[in-house]
């Protein structure tokens, strides 16, 4: 399990760490017993374009690096395009992620969806993100685990 140089760059020099004061939308996903929690705040302009994004993350190298790059990728994007960003897109941007990291550590795409829907709800508009499993505090990534067979020793 080795991280790419780009993952290590975003882990060592995370971009856009923090909280936007007076944010238009905020999303928090993850579960402390799983060890990863991610919070993202966004600023949105009148044309539904994301002007600014900041994050805070508790988690492993992959959780921090994916949070960092998502904040970079979504700035300047329309909300409807930003929520289409998939975990695989994020992994590809980072030059790949170890398979064990894909579904428990890539929280930022879900965090963004929650933040976008939060913004839309505040405006009295309909959500556009669909179901977001990891926004449920009882979400357990073990239940959809398909990577770790206990017999694989």
């Amino acid at each position: 399990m080795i991280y790419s140089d780009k993952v290590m760059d975003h882990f060592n020099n995370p971009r856009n760490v923090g909280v936007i004061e007076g944010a238009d939308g905020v999303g928090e996903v993850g579960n402390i017993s799983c060890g990863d929690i991610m919070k993202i705040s966004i600023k949105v302009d009148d044309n539904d374009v994301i002007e600014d994004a900041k994050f805070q993350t508790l988690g492993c190298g992959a959780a921090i690096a994916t949070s960092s790059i998502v904040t970079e990728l979504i700035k300047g994007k329309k909300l409807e395009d930003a929520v289409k960003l998939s975990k695989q897109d994020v992994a590809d941007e980072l030059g790949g992620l170890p398979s064990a990291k894909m579904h428990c550590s890539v929280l930022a795409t879900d965090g963004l969806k929650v933040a976008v829907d939060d913004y839309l709800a505040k405006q009295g508009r309909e959500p556009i993100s669909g179901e977001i499993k990891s926004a449920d505090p009882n979400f357990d990534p073990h239940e959809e685990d398909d990577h770790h067979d206990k017999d694989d020793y």
Partner: protein
Amino acid sequence: MTYLDYAATTPVDKRVLESMLPYFSEHFGNANSLYQVGRDAYHALEAARETIASGIGAARPSEIIFTSGGTEADNAAFVSVLKRIAPDGGHLITSAYEHPGILNLVISLGKQGYDITLVQPREDGLIHADDLAKAMREDTKIVSIMHGNNEIGTVNDVKTLAEIAHSRGALFHTDAVQSLGKVPFNVQDLGVDMASFSAHKIYGPKGVGALYLRRGISFDSFLKGGGQEGRRRSGTQNVAGAIGFAKALELCLEEMDAEALRLSVLRNHIVNRVTSALENTQATVSGDMLLPGIASLLINGVEGESMLLQLDNQGYAISTGSACSSGSLDPSHVLLAVGVKKEIAHGSLRVSLGRFTTEEDVDGFVDALIPIVEKLRAMSPVYQRYFGKESS
């Protein structure tokens, strides 16, 4: 690089390396060949066996079987003995916080039809005699409880646990991979029937270990072949490895008392400095029954892998029990077994010290750790919510 992961592996001591070198190209013979170069290898191998036998208090050198390491010794102790004493099933006991070499082996035997019981350690990190006694059954065949735990460093009272196993007619095995050469370990004093060892934890080479098998225990090797090691472990012996193992053990035993004292002072220094400099931190276990070189720390509100990677950036090699570093989703089974909550176990660090660790190394480590923890806690969205006293 400052290496603080001696419980994972150790560098080969130069004195050990020197002892091994002649046995690669000069005295290269097969220890089973009758001519001179073979006899030279044979005599060196048997001398190594005697050194190890006497180092662990075995009654006879023939009770030492050289293996490829601790895991093979563990597998031999169960599989090769069960083939003789209980081929059709029976009850096996081990603990819930064993090294995977035992734990996954026993779980696998459970799937093959053996009944298994995993005794839970208490919060003090030890297996209690009462708990083992309750787990014992009339048909218990083998009990395996580790001597020193590799993650938290606790040392079990193996002598009492072995007596309980014997009182109910079971054999007793112990994984002594972490404790050998670090604290006193004598198979006859402790009354164990079988014990596993590994050279690379004691400044010897990787790829060699041993099983202590008390004379008289039925054993049908799971490795079939040329019948080396008294028909108990086929395969041409790793002569240089065995010699390195013996030299490594000899050095550890010579230096053990002074080294144990030195390392426990350094270990306590780390625990004291970290817990006083950083709020919401603690040692996983405390007490007297500890390996001298292992500091297990719980750093609340920080994920272990991110600490590991940042420490690595500054040249410090340590390990963590967080899920992320193990490639699994759950944090360390050892920490969970001793009652550490998952959210706390994700922030565990194991700092393990050894022969080449200096006071400057451990102070440098703590100096590096403190700002890393502060930075990662500041980056966390929930640190103040779960652990903070007030907003910072």
